[in-house]
Structures are given as structure tokens and as C-alpha cells.
């Protein structure tokens, strides 16, 4: 891991975009950092937490984005610079607080870093958070390189203080997870004193500045907010993060920001259009540096916006064009709206080339489609890579849980189903989880939706509903849904798949683990005690004890009563393995007993159960254990109908 904390101004380090963000925060002299894990944002806190103590920072993995951001605000209100980082979905979670925080403004620099996931490779969607900045009048910086990740984060703190409001920095997966050279700046002196100044003063009794809805007249604060924000365009106007490269009068003006800017630069150079095409880079995507943009709009009659997810810059520039003086000529706009830029998914160099070539009306065939040799070579390489279908890890307790859930639902026979939640348990919606998860939306959504299904009895609904969430998602947003279900007597079963880790995002601790972000002992929060305090029926099962788990689920489903909880508890195999450093069982297939594809088994283990530790030896017509993959959990021995899989305790 990179040492982002070294005090070596002027030196250059190779950092991930997320590490550079963390470094930027250090250079800004933060005292407080909070986050909720979420790819692609997790490495920011992952980098800060281990060095937090040394750097005199308070660092926290919070149970959700809302409390994370609220806590960071408290630091800001007490004169401490604070950083809160999350993935795009997290901004939705904090939206209510964010809207209201804008009403009052802040005190010391408060920066919200959000990492969007264009293409949604590790997310439930590919939401763009930039429109939120616009909607709420929040200044937003959009870095294009690792260096800018650092520099902009630092600048965002200053901007936040200059404007008296939270400031956003938006990264994307590719940038967050790619290494680039970062030239370090100075680390500030470590002197921070926290004090909340707007406490009640007996000689000056008045409403605190930090309460929204001043005198219950929120519009007064709106006016204040707009005044504060009015200073933002001028700050952006002169920002060094905005720049232009290209001829004085370009045939085509490309406006781009973030990682897409790097694609645009390279695309123009590959197409050899440097003399004809100019590129305006926007680092301050909200508010727009209007004067700067207007000047360049005047120079070209074709404008192409290249960006990821929403046509955000594109629309903002068009709005701006609409307000230009009537005599100024209007350029033609190209981009997502015109179909010249793909409207969804991640952008890349090839797409940028295609977009530019099509607007410039020049023929371009990508190397892949042009060069047969190249294509062959690419295919040959692709074939040497082992196919790795998305699946649960070998030994994963969730495989056992979904196996049990599937069997219980089939046995129950009333077309019951699972409402799912975010995290590893989401794998339950595809084949490794036997497609058991039938609804899947948001953190806490599983139990919330189940609560609704559980009230449809009066309309003839008789299907049992099992809400599934992980332990981390339970703390994040499932507790209110559970309480609501209990209070309103909704009929569902909540299965908490407790693997004692936030495994999906890289094993960040959570309240159930009792360890804090900085590795200090916290207070361990017991899921079962919490659930039992609601006065409901709570059971704890080891999902590897398939029969008990199935029986428990069946009884719970049959019970007509209100919400109940079953905690399917078994430590994440990756955590166990790290701790114990050896396999619990030696597992092997006895070929004499294995009947493989014949009637009576039909490859249950490799065709249905599908743990990657089991492979099908086509020639022998038998299953075999792949010892390199098998972690010796022994679950398959209980699944094999022929007793062909043997587990021997080690």
C-alpha cells in the first residue's frame, strides 16, 4: 500500500485515484473522516483509517452514509475540516440531510467525495451524482487524473470555506482504481481545536445558525444560500482546473471533463486532428465557468460533449447557449442527445474516437475490426483466460444459506420468494444463489419490500416472503424496515446472512464485529439482542447445518404471525481462512461411489450446487475436487446424494 502520509513535498508517488484523494485530504489538513464502504469509493477510508491516529485524524467506518456525513458535518461546524466519502448510491441516502445542510451552510471545510460507477460494474445502477450538485447548488469538482484527485480534493476544502458550503468531488471507477503519478504538496502543521461556537448564549438568546428553517421561514435561508452560491461561478471562472488545448479557431470544440477528457485528448491525437479540433477541459463541472465556456462557444459552430452517464455538461452548456446574446451564433450540439456519444455505460478511447470521427465525418475503423491478425491474437489471449463466472467464493456461507432457502421454499410449496438486498447476498439473484432473490433494489430494500408483501393477505396473497440482508446491510438500513414490520404486524421472515464482515467491499468492520475503522475495540453490537428487544421470535442457525436451517425456515414461513428473524451465522470463509490459515477438512471424491451424470445424481455438485472447488472430469465421468480452489469447508459432502464426497477432519 502506498504511503500517502509521508511528508515529502515535491516528490512523486504512484497512487490510485482514491489514494490521491486521501492524500489531498491530508494536505488540506483534515481532522475528521467518515465513510461507508462502497465500491469504487472504499479505498479512500481504507487508506486513511490505518494512518489516522498517526496523523491526528479521527477516522470512522460508519454504519451508513447518512450518519457518516452527519458526523462529518458536526466536525465542520466545530471548526475541523472534514471529509466524507461514499459511492453514488450513498448520496441518495444522505440527500435529505444534504438539502437541509445547504440551508444553513457550514463552518470549516466540508468535502463530500463521491465515486460514481459508470457502467455499474459493482453497483445496482450507474447513477450520475452531478445532477445532485446542480439541484442543490453544491459546487462540484471533477478530476481527470490522479494528480487532480489530490489537488482538487485539497482545493475543495478551500472552496467550501470560501463559499460557506459543502463542496463535492466526483471520481469514477476507472479513475479511482487506476494508478497515476502524484506530486506531493506540503502537509500542514497539526493544530486543530474543535469548538462549537453557536451554543446558547444567555446574553444573546437567538436561534442557532445551524438550524434549518430559520424562524420557520425556510425561504429566508434559500435566499442566503443563493447569495452564497452566487460567488461560486467567479471562483470557477479562474480555476486552473479548466483549460483549453487546440487551435485558436477549432472546426469542432470538444467539451469534456473527468476521465473522459483523457480519452478525448488521445482520440484527437490518434485521429491526427490536433489542428482542427480543440478540447475544453472542465474541472469545475458545477457551476460552469460560464464566461470561459461562452468564449469558446463563440469560436466554433460544432460542439461535442464527451462525458459518462448523464449528458450533464452537455445540457448545462446548452442552457448557457440559450442565454447568450441574441446576435451570437448558436453552434450545433453533438453528444448523447444527438446519439454521437453512447448514452450509457463507461466511455473509453475507442468510443471517443468513434464519436469524434462521426461528428467530423471522417471514416474510422477500430483496429480490432480492421486488423484480422490483431483480432486473432486478441481472441487467442482471451481463450487462455479461465472463464470465471460470477459466483460465491468456495466455502462461502451464503451458498449454503441460499441452498437452504431454495429447498425450504420448494418444500413449502406456496410460491414463496426472497426479497433481496445489496451486498454479497445480491449474488442470490443469479445462478450461484439459484436465482432465489426475486426483488433487489437498495440497501434495506429487502426488508422494506417484504414488509409490504406481508400485508397483502387481505387481497388473497398467500406466498411466504423471506427478506434477506447481510449483517452490514442490516445495520445500514434494514433496522427501520424490521421495526416497521414488527409494529405493523407484517407477515415475513427476515434472514440475516451474518458472515461477520462487509465482504463485498473488502472486509471493512461494522458494529457486529466490534472493531472500529482504526482497529480499536468498539462496542460489539449483537444482532440477535437487538432483534430480540423487539419482542419477536429470533433463531440463530449455522447455514452449514442445512437440515436445521431448512427446518427453521419452514417453521418460520408457516407461522402466520408477524415478522420473525433468522440469523444465518457463519463467518465469511475468507475471514476464517485468514485467521486459521488451514482448511477444516480434507475433501475428496471417491470415484467408486460417484455416479456422475447418471440418473440418481446428474452431477448435482457441479451442475446445481456449483461450488468452484468442484470440477467435472469429463473423461472420467466423475466429479473431482480442485485442490487449488477447495477450501475444505465440506459442505458438498452433505449435498452429494451418493456419499461420494468424503470429508476428513484435519
Amino acid at each position: 500500500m502506498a504511503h500517502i502520509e509521508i511528508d515529502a513535498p515535491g516528490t512523486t508517488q504512484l497512487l490510485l485515484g482514491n489514494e490521491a484523494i486521501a492524500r489531498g485530504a491530508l494536505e488540506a489538513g483534515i481532522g475528521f473522516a467518515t465513510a461507508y464502504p462502497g465500491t469504487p469509493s472504499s479505498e479512500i477510508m481504507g487508506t486513511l483509517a490505518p494512518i489516522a491516529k498517526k496523523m491526528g485524524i479521527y477516522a470512522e467506518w460508519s454504519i451508513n452514509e447518512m450518519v457518516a456525513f452527519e458526523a462529518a458535518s458536526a466536525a465542520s461546524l466545530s471548526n475541523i475540516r472534514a471529509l466524507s466519502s461514499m459511492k453514488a448510491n450513498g448520496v441518495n441516502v444522505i440527500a435529505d440531510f444534504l438539502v437541509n445542510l445547504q440551508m444553513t451552510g457550514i463552518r470549516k471545510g466540508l468535502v463530500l467525495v463521491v465515486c460514481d460507477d459508470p457502467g455499474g460494474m459493482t453497483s445496482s445502477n450507474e447513477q450520475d451524482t452531478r445532477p445532485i450538485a446542480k439541484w442543490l447548488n453544491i459546487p462540484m469538482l471533477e478530476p481527470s487524473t490522479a494528480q487532480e484527485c489530490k489537488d482538487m480534493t485539497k482545493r475543495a476544502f478551500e472552496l467550501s470555506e470560501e463559499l460557506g458550503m459543502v463542496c463535492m468531488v466526483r471520481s469514477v471507477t476507472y479513475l479511482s482504481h487506476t494508478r497515476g503519478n502524484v506530486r506531493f504538496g506540503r502537509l500542514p502543521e497539526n493544530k486543530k481545536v474543535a469548538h462549537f461556537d453557536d451554543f446558547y448564549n444567555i446574553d444573546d438568546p437567538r436561534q442557532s445558525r445551524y438550524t434549518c428553517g430559520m424562524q420557520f421561514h425556510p425561504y429566508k435561508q434559500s435566499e442566503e444560500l443563493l447569495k452564497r452560491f452566487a460567488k461560486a461561478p467567479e471562483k470557477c471562472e479562474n480555476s486552473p482546473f479548466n483549460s483549453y488545448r487546440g487551435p485558436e479557431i477549432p472546426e469542432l470544440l470538444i467539451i469534456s471533463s473527468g476521465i473522459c477528457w483523457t480519452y478525448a485528448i488521445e482520440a484527437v491525437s490518434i485521429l491526427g486532428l490536433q489542428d482542427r479540433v480543440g478540447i475544453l477541459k472542465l474541472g469545475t463541472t458545477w457551476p460552469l465557468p460560464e464566461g470561459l465556456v461562452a468564449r469558446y462557444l463563440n469560436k466554433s459552430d460544432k460542439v461535442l460533449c464527451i462525458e459518462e452517464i448523464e449528458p450533464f455538461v452537455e445540457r448545462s452548456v446548452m442552457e448557457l447557449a440559450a442565454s447568450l446574446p441574441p446576435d451570437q451564433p448558436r453552434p450545433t450540439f453533438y453528444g448523447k442527445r444527438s446519439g454521437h456519444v453512447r448514452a450509457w455505460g463507461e466511455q473509453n478511447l475507442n468510443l471517443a474516437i468513434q464519436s469524434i470521427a462521426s461528428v467530423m465525418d471522417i471514416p474510422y475503423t477500430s483496429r480490432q475490426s480492421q486488423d484480422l491478425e490483431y483480432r486473432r491474437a486478441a481472441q487467442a489471449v482471451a481463450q487462455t483466460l479461465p472463464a470465471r463466472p460470477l459466483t460465491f467464493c468456495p466455502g462461502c456461507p451464503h451458498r449454503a444459506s441460499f441452498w437452504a432457502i431454495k429447498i425450504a421454499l420448494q418444500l413449502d410449496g406456496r410460491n414463496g420468494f426472497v426479497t433481496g438486498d445489496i451486498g454479497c447476498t445480491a449474488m442470490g439473484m443469479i445462478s450461484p444463489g439459484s436465482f432465489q432473490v426475486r426483488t433487489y433494489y437498495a440497501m434495506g430494500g429487502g426488508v422494506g419490500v417484504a414488509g409490504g408483501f406481508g400485508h397483502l393477505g387481505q387481497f388473497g396473497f398467500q406466498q411466504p416472503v423471506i427478506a434477506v440482508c447481510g449483517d452490514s446491510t442490516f445495520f445500514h438500513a434494514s433496522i427501520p424496515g424490521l421495526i416497521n414490520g414488527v409494529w405493523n404486524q407484517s407477515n415475513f421472515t427476515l434472514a440475516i446472512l451474518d458472515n461477520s464482515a462487509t465482504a463485498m467491499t473488502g472486509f471493512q468492520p461494522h458494529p457486529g464485529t466490534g472493531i472500529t475503522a482504526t482497529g480499536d475495540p468498539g462496542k460489539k453490537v449483537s444482532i440477535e439482542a437487538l432483534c430480540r428487544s423487539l419482542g419477536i421470535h429470533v433463531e440463530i442457525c449455522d447455514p452449514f447445518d442445512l437440515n436445521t436451517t431448512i427446518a427453521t425456515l419452514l417453521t418460520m414461513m408457516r407461522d402466520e404471525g408477524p415478522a420473525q428473524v433468522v440469523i444465518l451465522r457463519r463467518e465469511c470463509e475468507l475471514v476464517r481462512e485468514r485467521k486459521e490459515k488451514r482448511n477444516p477438512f480434507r475433501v475428496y471424491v471417491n470415484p467408486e461411489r460417484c455416479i456422475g451424470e447418471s440418473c440418481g445424481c446428474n452431477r448435482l455438485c457441479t451442475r446445481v450446487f456449483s461450488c468452484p472447488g468442484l470440477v467435472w472430469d469429463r473423461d472420467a465421468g466423475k466429479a473431482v475436487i480442485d485442490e487449488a480452489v477447495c477450501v475444505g469447508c465440506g459442505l458438498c459432502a452433505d449435498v452429494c446424494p451418493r456419499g461420494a464426497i468424503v470429508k476428513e477432519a484435519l
Partner: protein
Amino acid sequence: MHGKASKELQKEVIDKGLCTLCGGCTGTCPYLVVYDGRIVRLHRCDMSEGQCYHYCPRTYMDMDAISRHIFGAPYGEGEIGSVREVFLARSTDQVIHQKAQDGGIVTTLLSVALAEGMIDGAVETKLDEEKNPHGFIARNREELLECAGVSYEPSPVIQAINRLPNETTEKLGFVGLPCHVACLSKMKLSPPTNRANIEHLEPVIGLFCGWTLSHSFHRFLQEHFDLAKAIKFDIPHHPEHSFDVYTPSGKESVDLDEISPYINKACGYCFDMTAEFADISVGSGRAMFKGWNTVILRTKVGAEILDIAKGRNAIEIQPIPDESLANLKRASLDKKKRALKNIISMTGGVDDLLYLGISQHLKEMLLE
């Protein structure tokens, strides 16, 4: 080659309400299980040829082929199948009488065979604590006695056969209802692979059967009786009209009309009242001969055991009066006609008789 497996079993048998819950399709593979009075498919199996489909007594039964295999002759047109002898009999063993349903012939024949070393045990039906029937392998006299008496709910006995270890060399007898015997006869005709050898499973003792009661009847029983105390269930013959539950303190009854809604719909499509593919078929002596059994001897294997039992004075025998035999035949014929009628009303035509592979002539005869 039928090219069919569990998916088709579901579609053609279970979904159509023909499943008798014999257990023929369960116990051998991980895909099908009996649960709560249903056959449940747990996972998707993509076999093109499934033994589950093949041996199910409600998929095609080539009656001639089976009959030839067991009796050396095609399926006949008599009312009660292939017959060597029909008579009345009862056990001379008072201990067995205490526990047995009617004349105790079933338990007695098995206990004699066991004592003679002809068998090592028998696949039977036993009731669990909640009085749910399930397949059980009785290997001594005590265990045979534990299985005596009947449950009127379907017992997936064949599952117990399917679960026998491949390498077993035990000689086992078998007791089952006509649908069980039908399933077993299909297995004997083309023995299964990857399972225990079932060819030596004999004698096959079949029970007469009018119908079974569905699983929801079990809930009825739980609501109306203290099942933990029940020691015997009985449906005495006409003119009585009740369902009786015996406990140590006596007999409790409900009117038979309360029971009839629970009759398994699948039994309405059943062609066989007397377990025609068994070695020996046993029913009650009806009202006229309470405490006796009606016995149909069908095969050589059956004859051997009967002879030994007679020789040991384990059973006593009397001829069956003509009137009783005529009644038995009429009842059996009625069941065949009813099944045919129901099958035709399900398929909508006389050309499709679902599972029933009988000759054109027999079909026409029964439809008259």
C-alpha cells in the same frame, strides 16, 4: 425410451393429480422428495431419461409385459387378476392378532418366512410418533409387529427400497398397496441401475385397496383425536359406516361421510383393487368374516410361503363362500370401470388412457 424425466413427471402425473405418493420417484436422487403429502422437485434436473418417470405407476404401464414377466402370460380379463386360489385365512398367533388389522395374515406370513430364513426382513409401512406412515425395513419379529395394523394415508414405501444401499445382499419381503406393487412390478420388469438389486425382493404381498386418504386428512385426525394415544385405525365394512380410532381406553368414531372429502383424487384413476401383480394379495374378510382375511394366491413364490405357514399351523384356512367371492369380484370390477371412466373424462377420449396399457378388447369390454 420415453425421453422423459422429472419435469415430465411433474407435468404428466403430479400436476394432473394422478400421483399416489407411492415413493417410487423418491429416495434415489437429490431432486425429488416427499414432503407434507406432496412430491416436491427441489432442483432442476435435465436428464433426458429419468428412472423417476420410468417407474412411476402412473406413467405408461405395459400390463401385458408385466404380466408376462410375473405370470408368464399376458394380462387377463378377470376381475381380480391372475389367480391360483382365493380363500379366507387368519393367523393362529394371538400376539399378532392383538396388533393386526384383520386376520393378521400379512404379519404372520412374513414372520414365518423370517423364521424359516427365507427372508432377512421385509419392506413395510410403519407409523411415526405423529402417526404418519413411512417405509420401514422390519428385520425381526418385534419390528414386524410394530408394522402391523394400517394407516389409511399414503405411505411412500418404495422410497425405502430406493434407499437400500447398492451393495445390499439382504433378502427382503415386501408389503404394499396396489400402486406400490405396480411400481415394484415395473422395476422388476426393467431393473434400475445405480441402485440395489430388487429382483430378489419377494414375496410381494399386496393389500387390497379402495382408496387412501389425502395428507390433509392427517390434519383432520390431529384436530379430532389424540393421535399420541391411537393404537389402531379401522374402517369397518358395510353395514357400519364409520372411521374408528382405537385407544387403550376404547374406540372413538367419526361418520364415514366426514372422511369422504379427504379421499385422494388420484385413487379415482386407479385400476387395481387387489394388487394384481403381487405374489399374494390380502384384504379383509369383510363384515361376514370379521377377524379374517381374504387371500388371493397368485404365484409359486406365494404358494411356497403359504404351504410353510400351513405346515407350521401358523394360519388357519377356510374356503370363501361364492357370494363373498362374487362381491369381491364385483367391487374390483367396479373400481376398474370407475378408473376407466375417470381417465377418459380427463383425457377426453378413449384413445388416450394415460398410464393404462391394456388391450383394446379389455377396454371395450369394460366400457360396455
